[in-house]
Structures are given as C-alpha cells and as structure tokens.
C-alpha cells in the first residue's frame, strides 16, 4: 500500500467514524478560544516579502504590513493607506497623500519618507516596479504625508501596480528597515498592518504567531479582499505548520486547529462529512497547470514539435491526475489567462482543444525530428508536478518522442531549469510547474507569458508578436482595448507555444464551524474573521 492509497483508506475510515457518530474529541481549549489556529499552505521559513516571493510569505506579510492600495474582488485597486492621489494632466506626475494617524508597530508614525524608501526597495524586485523604475525621473517625499512620483512617460497601470496582490506586494516598512538591500533579508519585522508579528515565538518549520495591533485604524469601507476595513476580531493568530496532510486533517477534526488553508483533495470527503467542519473553494482564481519547453534546443526549438505536443494534449488527463474525480475543481483551458476574470479570453485557443494524436504524429513527421531525447525534469516531491509529469511522459511517447524522464526534487528542478546548456550537457527540455491564477489575470505580473528571448522566463521563448501585445495591453486606454490586446496575445502565445497550459484547477479550504467570516480569495483574509 502506498502513502496516497493509505490516506484514501484512512479517509474512508474517517468518514465511517464521522457518520457513525463516533465521539469526536473536543479538547478543552481554554485560552485557545481567543486564538485562531491556522494551518498555512507551507512553512513560513523566512519573513521578508520583498527578498523572497513565496506566496506563504506574502500571506503572512499581509497581516503585518499594509499597502498603499488594495485590490478588491472585482480586481479594482482601492485606496488603503492613502487618503488620495492626483495625477497631472500629462500623466507624468503622480502625487499621493497618506491617511492621517497611521502608525508602525513600534509606535512611530508612518511618514512619506518611509513610503518612498519602501517603494524603492519593492521596485528593485517587482516586474511592474522595474517598469516604473525604467521611466522614472524622481520619487521623493514632499512633506511628512505626501510624496511625488515623476515619470518620463505615462504609466496608466500605476494604481494596479501598487494594489496588486502578486508577490512581491508593495508593503510599506519603516525607512530604516526599507533601506536594506532588496537582495538581503530584513531581520526586523515592523509594519503598520492590523497584526504584529510575535518574533520571539517564531519557530520556523513549526509555529508563527501574530497579535492584534491596538493602534491600527481600519478604513471605514467594508472589507473586500485587500481593500476596505481590515477589522481584526481575533486577538491572536497562530500559524501551526503541519507538513503531513493526514495529520492536519486529524488536527482539524479534533479541534486542535481551526482553519486549514489547503486540504489534500483525497481527504476532503472526510472533512465534508464532519459535522463541525465547513469546506469550500479556497482561492477562486485557482491555478494554471503548466509545462514549459526549452525553446533554445532540439527538439523544442522546432515550432512544429511544440505544436505537436499541444495538438495531442488532453488537459483532462492532467487535471484528473491532480484533483481526482471532483469535477468542480477543474476546467479545460484553451488559453493562458485565468477563467472567470474580466479579460479572460479563449481567442485562438483551438490547438489546445484538439486532443488529436494522429495530427500530432503528422506534425512530428513534418518537423524533421531526429530522435533527440526529451529530457523531462520532474519534481517528485510536489504532488501536482509529479502527477503532471507522469501524464506528460505518456503523452510524449504517444506521439513518437523519445523521453528521458528525470525524477528529482524541486530544489534540483529550480536549479536545473536555469541552465541554458543543451539537455545533453546538464540542461533540460521540459519541466512542470503551475501558476497562481491571481498572477495570470492580465500580463502585468504574468512572467510566464512573456516571450522576450533571453529576458524571458525559463524556456526563453522569443515571440515578438506576444511582446507587442503585452506592450499594447500596458498602453491600452480602456478595457475594450485591453481585451483586444489580450485576444491577440492569447492567439500568438498558443500558435507559437510559449508554454503548454495543462488546465485550470481549484483547491478547497476547510475550517471549523465556530469560525465565521472566512471568505474565498487569492490569499487567506483574516480580517472580519471571528471565533465563537
């Protein structure tokens, strides 16, 4: 019996227990009733949201550091720390003003100089920040509450850049901390967000704790994702790191923890059957499964070979390998952008719907494929990449490609995919990953869609048509222009196979019924959550 099957069996036993009325423990929590215990998606191994860009760090940082603007559930940037902004008629000068009364956790007021230094640090690490930096004349404080951003050319997506939830977010830190080199980790975690980080209790790999910041002044508008009033109804939040899914499920059932961010789909039936547990979709923006082909070397430097792979692909195979039989959790994706978002498009995505092995073989024959092995590097320690890798290996063999399957771990994939050498000299032909749907709403933070050759993400696609449409999207005057650019971008990306999307999938979150106010979103939002 392997681990996965054992979990399923244990889950079945758990269902019996739950439905059979077995006494579930209700541990005496005492002081724990005022504390929310949360099992995050991963270990909080470091805590600098600019230095590293892991989602788990971003999620914890959203408690401790506030942002100038916050994205809402309609994907619109809303004011958060700022009272207001003005943009000159030529679009070249932005002037911002802070809300009065904002304080850092050390009791000092939030000043414009803190904002300026924080934005400078963020700029160095963020793709949109770098775009602004490239057209920047000056970024400086005007007075204690105001600062000015002067540009060489207009940047219409300024507020989106400051509000977006993609890591790294433009979190505001005290100037002395924000002066830290963006490639060096900060060691002092002082923000102006609704919770303070309990540094002394932090045991990386085991526990991180946050305490309510009494001086936080939430906005008066209702909370909506990262926008609106972040009212903390809980005094203390403990992140409990539980690496084993079955253990996390058991801890949620026993009441030792209150909220589990990412339950394993195999265990969801057990949790759904439990009378004290709610289960619902976690992040409605989900994930886009992906494998990337190396455009630099044979066989995938040949467009026809890349097109053959897309032509033969059946996304359902990939998605079922990740989410199992639950049809609520996946959708076919004939394109590259997040379904259900305003600019979503399937334009030009027919190749991704074909599932035609015969046509793919014909393309391979026309390509002049020489039998070069496809070095398929697959991280076995991440269930999604392992599942997709197994499906891909079969897919490649079915169309006559020779496969050299390299089963390894994510640490190795992370290093190997940066190699530009030929596959036979330590390089690679393809690797698997996924992209958070929140990153794939539009081109602003969608590194994986870029096709600017050497500067592009791993695989280094070079497709000028894609880059033209990225520029057109950034310069679009209204949503109609944006949508048109996205249509053309999607078509060009599919035709040239920038990468291979394997489908769109969602995941659940689970929480005890005595916890109220849990919402679906691209990250766990703790404001307005209460524990009865």
């Amino acid at each position, binding site marked *: 019996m392997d681990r996965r099957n054992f979990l399923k069996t244990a889950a079945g036993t758990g269902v019996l*227990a739950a439905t059979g009325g077995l006494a579930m423990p209700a541990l005496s929590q005492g002081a724990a009733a005022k504390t929310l215990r949360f099992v995050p998606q991963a*270990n909080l191994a470091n805590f600098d949201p600019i230095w590293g860009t892991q989602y788990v760090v971003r999620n914890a940082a959203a408690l401790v550091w506030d942002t100038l603007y916050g994205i809402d559930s309609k994907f619109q940037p809303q004011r958060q720390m700022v009272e207001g902004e003005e943009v000159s008629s030529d679009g070249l000068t932005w002037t911002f003003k802070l809300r009065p009364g904002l304080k850092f956790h050390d009791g000092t007021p939030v000043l414009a100089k803190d904002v300026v230094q924080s934005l400078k640090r963020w700029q160095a*690490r963020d793709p949109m920040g770098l775009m602004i930096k490239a057209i920047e004349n000056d970024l400086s404080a005007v007075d204690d509450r105001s600062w000015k951003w002067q540009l060489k050319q207009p940047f219409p997506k300024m507020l989106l850049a400051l509000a977006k939830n993609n890591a790294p977010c433009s979190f505001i830190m005290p100037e002395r901390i924000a002066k830290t080199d963006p490639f060096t980790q900060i060691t002092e975690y002082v923000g102006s967000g609704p919770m303070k980080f309990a540094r002394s209790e932090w*045991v990386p790999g*085991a526990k991180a704790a946050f305490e309510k910041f009494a001086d936080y002044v939430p906005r008066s508008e209702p909370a909506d994702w990262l926008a609106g009033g972040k009212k903390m109804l809980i005094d203390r939040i403990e992140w409990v790191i539980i690496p084993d899914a079955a*253990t996390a499920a058991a801890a949620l059932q*026993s009441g030792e923890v209150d909220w589990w961010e990412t339950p394993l789909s195999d265990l969801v039936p057990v949790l759904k059957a439990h009378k004290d547990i709610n289960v619902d979709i976690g992040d409605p923006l989900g994930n886009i499964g992906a494998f990337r082909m190396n455009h630099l070397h044979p066989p995938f430097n040949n467009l026809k070979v890349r097109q053959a792979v897309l032509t033969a692909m059946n996304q359902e195979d990939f998605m079922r390998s990740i989410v199992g039989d639950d049809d609520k959790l996946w959708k076919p994706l004939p394109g590259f952008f997040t379904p259900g978002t305003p600019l979503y498009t399937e334009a030009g995505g027919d190749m991704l719907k074909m599932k035609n092995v015969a046509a793919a073989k014909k393309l391979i024959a026309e390509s002049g494929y020489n039998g070069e092995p496809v070095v398929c590097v697959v991280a076995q320690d991440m269930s999604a990449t392992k599942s997709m890798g197994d499906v891909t290996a079969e897919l490649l063999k079915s169309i006559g490609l020779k496969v050299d399957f390299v089963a390894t771990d994510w*640490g190795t994939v*992370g290093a190997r995919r*940066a190699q530009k050498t030929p596959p036979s000299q330590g390089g690679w032909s393809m690797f698997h990953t996924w992209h958070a749907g929140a990153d794939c709403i539009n081109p602003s933070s969608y590194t994986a869609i870029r096709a600017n050759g050497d500067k592009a993400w791993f695989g280094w696609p070079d497709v000028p048509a894609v880059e033209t449409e990225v520029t057109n999207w950034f310069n679009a005057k209204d949503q109609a222009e944006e949508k048109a650019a996205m249509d053309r971008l999607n078509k060009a990306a599919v035709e040239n196979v920038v990468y291979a999307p394997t489908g769109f999938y969602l995941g659940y979150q689970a929480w005890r019924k005595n916890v109220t106010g849990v919402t679906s979103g691209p990250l766990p939002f703790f404001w307005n959550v209460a524990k009865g």
Partner: protein
Amino acid sequence: MLAFIIRRIITTIPVMAFVALFVFSLLYIAPGDPAAVIAGDQASPADVERIRQSLGLDRPYLVRFGEWFFRVLQGDLGTSIFTSLPVTQLIAQRIEPTLSLMVLTLILAVSIAVPLGVVAAWKAGTWVDRAVVGFAVFGFSVPVFVIGYLLAYVFALKLDWVPVQGYTPIAQGIWPWFKNLILPSITLGTVYIALIARITRATMLEVLQQDYVRTAQAKGVSNRDVLFLHSLKNAAVPVVTIIGIGVALLIGGAVVTESVFAIPGLGRLTLDAILRRDYPVIQGVVLIFSFVYVLVNLAVDLIYTLVDPRIRY
C-alpha cells in the same frame, strides 16, 4: 578507564571533521540551488543570480569550506540561508523535542523488548514464542507512517486520550509533555522493539543452551534467577550493541515520526533544510547527529565493561 574516555572523546574530533568535510563536499556536488528556492517560482534568472551572489554561493568551494570550518572551530555553525537565524539557535529550538522522543522511545523499547525476547527464548517453540516473533515481523514490516496514522486515529481522534500533533516542552509539565509524546514514541519504538526483541531472543537461546545454565538448573536455582541473574547478563553484550546501533535507526525514524505528528524536532528541521538546500543547517544538524552517535558508541563501550568483567580498556 578515565584515560580511555578522554582518548575516545579526543578521537571524535577528527571523525567529526571528516564527517563535516564529507557532508560539505556532498552538498557542493549535489544538484540544487537555494537561491532558486528563495527567489520563488516566478523569479527571473537574473534575480536568482543576484541572490546567489548575496548569499556567497558563487564563491569557490575551498573558500566557502574554509570559512565554514573556521567558524565551526569557534563554535559558530553559521546562519540559515532561509531564516537568517543562527543555526545554533535553530538546533537549540529543536533539540529538546527530538531528544525527548528518542529517550522516551528508548525507555519504552528496552523495557518492552528485553522481557519479550527473554520470555520468547524461555518459551521457545510455544505460541508465546511464535507471538513474539510474529510481533517482531510486524514491527519490521509495517511502515512507520502507517503505525502513526493508526495510533493517531484510534487514540487521538476516536478516544480523545491524547493530542493528534504538536509538542509541549517538559518545562510546562510532565503530563502534557508525555501526552504529546506517547504516540510518537510507540510509533517510532515499534521497529526498535522488534529489533531488540529478536536479538534478545536469539542471544538468550544461545546462552540457555550453555552448560552452566544446565548446571544451575540442575542445582535447583529458580527459573527467575536462571533467566535474569545467570543468563541475561551473559546475553547482554549483543543486546547493548544493538541498542547502540539502534540509535541510528531512531535518528532516521524520527524524521518520519516528527512529520506525521508535527513535532518540531531536528528530524523535520533536517528534512526541510535538505529540500530547500539550506546548507548551513544541514551541515550543523549532521555534525550534531554525528556527535550524538559517537557519544552513544562511547557509552556502549563503557556499558560493556559493566556487563562483562572480561572486557577491559
């Protein structure tokens, strides 16, 4: 004896230095890049390279090893690449849960396995013997995580006797500490009990066939005295050896057990560090484990002299 102990402790230094060099070299040639993990999945190659440079990972092997070794000689195990916390602090945070787990497991295992092995040998060929052997086979065959899940389901979820996961420091009370550790200790101890019980049974069978045992029985010495005074002491050397060797098993098993029961111990720290390529942490933990292992071997050697007067150093 004192000279022997001092000599043994001094000889651990080159052993540990060699282990350190070996581990450092192994990590150097192993694939993987902590900078890529830190930078996140969406980072550009240029970002990854900047992080590599800021961490000093682009410097030559000998320079990095030399700096690390010099620091270790001063008692500084370096700083974690990921947490920016001193490795000594990370190990200090984690050593109590792991030591607690190992000690409790050891006590449970020895107190259960030795009597089981003795009884099985005494009742050789009977259903008691077969039951003990069967249990030993079970203990060897079932993966640690399966035993862990089953115990957690029955005793934590169904009966609500103990928590499912976590660790309570001993400073907060013996009972909370024990409640958190009892299931992990039984889980980890199952293999260990099986191992010690089998060795005890085998060595006791051999001893029980010796002439002096038959003589003692013929003289009318009670069964209890024959077993525990005359036989067990003479069977103890291999048992003590296997208990010592078993510490290595405990260290390996602790990685899985600590993950299953979410115990923040050194096993989990090591696993996390390996997956992230957090080199200073891996090196620090390996050094600590090596030191523990060397000390256990020393203790085993000393115990030999107590159980067998013929052994002298």
